[in-house]
């Protein structure tokens, strides 16, 4: 087994661990709001009808 493959396997383990933790705590950088999400209204996010 090449060294880079072992390093990659550890990396995948980290990704999976992060994913499990995010799932358990409901975390996501793609959320519309919340403790860690983007968004919130006013300021940067869009407000109002989306059609002319």
């Amino acid at each position, binding site marked *: 087994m090449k060294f880079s493959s072992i390093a*990659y396997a550890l990396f*995948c383990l980290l*990704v*999976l661990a992060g994913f499990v933790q995010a*799932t358990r*705590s409901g975390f996501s950088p793609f959320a519309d709001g919340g*403790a860690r999400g983007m968004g919130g*209204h006013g300021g940067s996010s869009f407000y109002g009808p989306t059609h002319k």
Partner: protein
Amino acid sequence: MTEAAPTAAPSTVRALTCTQCGGTLSLRAAGYTVSLVCEHCGATLDTTDPQLRIIARATTALRRPLIPLGSRGVLRGETWEVVGYLERSDGDGDWSEYLLFNPYQGYGWLIDDGRRFSYGFLLDRLPEMDGTQLVIDNGKSLDFYSGPYPAKVRFVVGEFYWRVAVGERVRVTDYVRPGTIVSCEENDSERTWSRMDLLNWGEAERAFGIQQRHPNTSTPSPQEPSPWRDRLVESLIIGAVAAFTLIVIAIIGSGSTRVASADFEAGLDGATRTVVIHNIDIPAHSSAIRISAQSDQLDNSWVDLDYSLVDRRTQQSFDAYGLAEHYHGSDSDGPWSEGNTRPDVRLSSIPPGSYDLVIELAAHRWVPYTSPDFYNARTVDPNPVPIPVTITVDRGGMFGGNVLLGLILIAIWPGFVFWRHYSFEKRRSGDLDADGDDS
């Protein structure tokens, strides 16, 4: 009985004097060698003639081979002596061939393509064709690589078992598999097959005491195995297992619990209404919250939904905005409709606690900019048409963005390895478009 054996084992090397220049030569394979090219003056001598008749004189400038004639070395467990050297060319590139001799093994070849060394032998058994592939006697199959192309001897020195001469031509066809080339050489009177196995970097240099060459993959030899192939296979296996595990976790963790559901009414073009859903509990650990609004009766209007999830104890508020809308009309292309009447808003990492969801609802009629009413100031309708809105709150669920991000992270390394392997293979097969950088 036989004659008494000599008390000392005889040497295989015999001294001769060149008929042309008088220089001292060594004959290393007496009985097998047919022509000997003098390393001092380049004359070709007939070793089957007791007078060592001159067959030909030198036509090219003398060169010294990288591995001197007479060098002995151990390659893959066998001892070999370099007895002959020739340089051949196919019109595009040149390569060198060393004729190796061992009295108990016969002849072998060491081939130098300028980068890599290969170890070659004549095949005793003719290979067979299996479809488009060539099969040799150990069962391995090779793919056609190139040919027939002409190869010509450009320089020769040392001793050979055939009447070698500068300018001698053969037609060559090559077949490859990772690590091996099988070549068919033919001229008008005979056809020979030989098999050449790629030696590892440094193997030939250590065997014959010449300077080590440094590994590089800028111009791979035709039979050179890709240094990325093993890594590619391993990374694909690890990546597939990781991706599969990620998806399984996602499926397991994607369940959500309904926490609250309530129906409200917004007033169309009326005053903003504030409503509250109480006692939304998040036990134990922080969670994601999905707030879904559903307002299917909307028509050419929209509802602004300002959410505030407020912790009853700390009064900390998590805010978000949702928009339910629906429009329709008709234009030159025909009737159209658009808008989402069931918007979802997702909040992440809400800490455990007891919350109230405060919702400000404001419904508005949509006026197209072509209408004369567009520039009128909006007035609040004191008796607005009620627009029903259902709000449901769920705890948990899976963010699709997380899954996608995880899969992308897992795919980065295999993607990189695949790209390196693919560009190596393109360079190996002689494609000139591929990258030329070293690994």
